[in-house]
């Protein structure tokens, strides 16, 4: 067996060549480095999706604008939605889960480090695949929901890139879901019972269940779309007996749980932030856990509320309407628990806390309009207007994006070893927060006045001019906020001081490791004595975790390039799928790519990869 590599794991202390760093990331199976890849990838696509959003707002700045053409506008709105949901919000959340969840339960890595690496590469190359469409004759233009028959009849290869790109990225997400579930069930430190897990770990767990049961529906939907577009099947071809509503059902059976996949993790991380910066135990921990489960459970039975106007009939509509409204109850429990956590606490307001405080009213507005659009009769009026746009941006930006910013400010020291600058952080918050409400609050009224979504121009003097102008102005503020954040990240990377292990006087296990942690996380697995285990040690012990085991050799997985090669195979094969409709020679790419991927799988299965040991002596040598 190979001998442990003494890898100091920090680019700061040791200058390494760019090639070495690149190879390290290509082959890494370490959960923190995989998290870095998720975060870098997610940030890149977030900027891309942001640029697309800005183009939308410039186009709608004034009536009958001709900044972009109608066709290009369709591509922009499609790519904005798809990119933000699949390639920005989810990977950024998966990145934080990857970085923090193993630390919170006292694990040295995730259960399947190989799959973890495979998942991140599938996401990155799937995202690149999707965006390749810009350079190969036009991006998808059927909206992020890709309703048939608009999607099946869309000319060119845009929608093909959508189907194949999401298929690849989606497979990666599914793997992460399974990985996190097994990690949390099998690899908790001694004493870390389920009801002692920090809430972010809990929401990671429940989100993973959602991923596991939601994504396969998308997989099937995308397969049917691929078959119809690329191989001449007739699922959505009404002339041959097809049924276009099947796409809507499959898409939303995935799509509605997906919105809870986006929001539940940030519910968890807000719980951590409120508790830490109020210096109080989370109010109603148990009810928080069960509220999360209830939201996830109900999240699977409300998909058809996206389809009220399709004509399912009053009975089906009513059932889905009532089920949807029921979700307000567990969500309300959470909102009140957060407020009660702060109540009487020693509240400290910094940038992370500002995002958390801004989240509560923003998300509550989104929840309230959610009840409005859940009301069937009224939804006939709201459907496909800017009211819906305003609603889901209040939940996704006001919830998920604010949560991502909060989490990044909170965990930046743990993930990157630096504390973000407070002043810049506050500037980010205020510009983004004000810009967000400027952009989207007015859109409720634009929608109520009848402005439909996805239209590339509007007429003047219809009462829509001022509203759209204000909305576009808000986008400018949000952009400034994001730019300041990026500046902040670069600034602290170059100029910032190394962060302490526990900069926030934290309560949970991740703050007991160095910032950033060693790649084996702990020399000795800690013993957990209760909820908020570090806080217990701070108040009742000596402030340090008691080890649960003697110092002994640590078993760690080996780095490997196979996940990257496997992904590359799928990537090449994807192009084969898309272009075999034009020229049969592309079957070479299709089968060649598949062969590479399957061979990589075979090598992985047949090659013994039993990992390596970090010996006791090495661990002692690293004692500081």
């Amino acid at each position, binding site marked *: *067996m190979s001998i442990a590599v003494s890898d100091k794991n920090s680019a700061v202390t040791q200058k390494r060549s760019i090639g070495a760093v690149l190879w390290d990331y290509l082959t890494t199976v370490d959960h923190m480095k995989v998290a870095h890849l998720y975060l870098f990838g997610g940030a890149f696509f977030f900027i891309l999706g942001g640029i697309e959003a800005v183009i939308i707002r410039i186009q709608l700045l004034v009536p009958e604008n001709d900044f972009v053409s109608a066709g290009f506008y369709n591509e922009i709105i499609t790519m904005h939605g798809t990119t933000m949901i699949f390639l920005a919000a989810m990977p950024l959340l998966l990145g934080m889960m990857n970085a923090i969840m193993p630390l919170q339960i006292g694990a040295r890595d995730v*259960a*399947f480090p190989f799959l973890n690496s495979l998942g991140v590469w599938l996401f990155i190359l799937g995202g690149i695949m999707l965006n390749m469409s810009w350079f190969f004759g036009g991006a998808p233009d059927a909206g992020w929901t890709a309703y048939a028959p608009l999607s099946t009849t869309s000319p060119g290869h845009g929608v093909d890139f959508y189907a194949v790109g999401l298929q690849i990225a989606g497979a990666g997400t*599914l793997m992460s*879901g*399974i*990985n996190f*579930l*097994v990690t949390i*069930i*099998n*690899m908790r430190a001694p004493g870390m019972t389920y009801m002692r897990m920090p809430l972010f770990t809990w929401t990671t767990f429940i989100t993973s269940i959602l991923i*596991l*049961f*939601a*994504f*396969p*529906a998308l*997989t*099937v*939907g995308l*397969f*049917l779309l691929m*078959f*119809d577009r690329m*191989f*001449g*099947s*007739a*699922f959505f*071809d009404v*002339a*041959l*007996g*097809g*049924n276009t509503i*099947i796409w809507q*059902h*499959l898409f939303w*059976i995935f799509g509605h749980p997906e919105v809870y996949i986006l929001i539940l993790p940030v519910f968890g991380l807000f719980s951590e932030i409120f508790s830490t910066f109020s210096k109080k135990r989370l109010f109603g921990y148990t009810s928080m856990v069960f509220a999360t489960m209830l939201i996830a459970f109900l999240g699977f039975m409300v998909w058809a509320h996206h389809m009220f106007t399709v004509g399912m009939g009053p009975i089906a509509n009513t059932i889905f309407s009532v089920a949807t409204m029921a979700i307000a109850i567990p969500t309300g429990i959470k909102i009140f628990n957060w407020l009660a956590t702060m109540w009487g606490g020693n509240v400290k307001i910094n940038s992370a806390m500002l995002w958390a405080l801004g989240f509560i009213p923003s998300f509550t507005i989104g929840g309230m309009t959610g009840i409005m659009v859940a009301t069937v009769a009224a939804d006939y009026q709201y459907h496909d207007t800017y009211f819906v746009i305003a609603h889901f941006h209040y939940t996704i930006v006001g919830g998920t994006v604010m949560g991502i910013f909060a989490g990044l400010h909170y965990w930046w020291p743990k993930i990157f070893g630096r504390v973000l600058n407070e002043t810049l952080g506050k500037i980010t918050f205020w510009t983004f927060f004000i810009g967000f409400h400027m952009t989207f609050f007015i859109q409720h009224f634009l929608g109520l006045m009848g402005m439909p979504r996805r239209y590339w121009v509007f007429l003047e003097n219809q009462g829509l001019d001022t509203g759209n102008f204000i909305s576009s102005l808000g986008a400018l503020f949000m952009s400034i906020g994001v730019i300041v954040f990026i500046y902040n990240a670069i600034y602290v990377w170059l100029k910032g001081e190394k962060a302490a292990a526990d900069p926030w006087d934290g309560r949970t296990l991740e703050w007991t490791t160095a910032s950033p942690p060693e790649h084996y996380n702990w020399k000795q697995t800690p013993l957990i004595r209760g909820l908020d285990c570090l806080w217990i040690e701070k108040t009742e012990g000596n402030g340090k975790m008691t080890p649960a085991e003697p110092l002994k050799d640590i*078993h760690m997985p080996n780095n490997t390039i196979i996940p990257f090669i496997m992904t590359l195979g799928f990537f090449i094969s994807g192009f084969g799928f898309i272009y075999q409709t034009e020229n049969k020679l592309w079957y070479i790419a299709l089968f060649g790519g598949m062969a590479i991927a399957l061979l990589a799988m*075979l090598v992985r*299965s*047949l090659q*013994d990869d*039993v*990992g390596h*040991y970090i010996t006791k002596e090495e661990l002692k040598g690293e004692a500081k």
Partner: protein
Amino acid sequence: MSQDQILNPKSLPNSPEKATLEGKNKFLGLWFFLGGETVLFASLFGSFVALRNSTAGGPSSEELFGLELVFLMTVMLLTSSLTSVYAMYHMKNHDFKKMQLWLGITGLLGIGFLGLEIYEFTHYITEYGFTFRSSAFGSAFYSLVGFHGGHVTFGIVWLIAIMVRNARRGLNLYNAPKFNTFSLYWHYIDVVWVFVFTVVYLMGKVG
């Protein structure tokens, strides 16, 4: 103690497939994977049920299906589930040779099933002109049954790979979980076939 010694103990424990953390993780991870697969097949079944009467003037399921062939296929696949149970029984008794024997029989039954399925598909295409493209029913039929057949194919390749790889070295704590996860996967594919048989063929004949 090196990893080699841990994985090749002098005497194997009672459940060698779950004796290591990696083994436990694989076991649980595969169960979750099968949970996801359930949604995958449920979506395909849903689409099939919605489209099974959309023949667009082409042949319907009553005209196409012959239950004799499907019965034979069902018997072969369900028997292969039983033989894989025997294989796992011998694995737990640390009898590597007998395990390989029963796994081999499992694989042969799987190949037999697959051969009959390929015959069935060619029969429909050549005799009835019933293809993936002829109607929404055709698309849904070949997708659902084809996805199942694809899973069987993958399973057979997987089985051959791990059987050949470990043929010379026998059972240890590193490869026992691999055999066990294969067996779980194989059972699952058989369970899906029970539903295919009921929903596609039985309901297609009498429903």
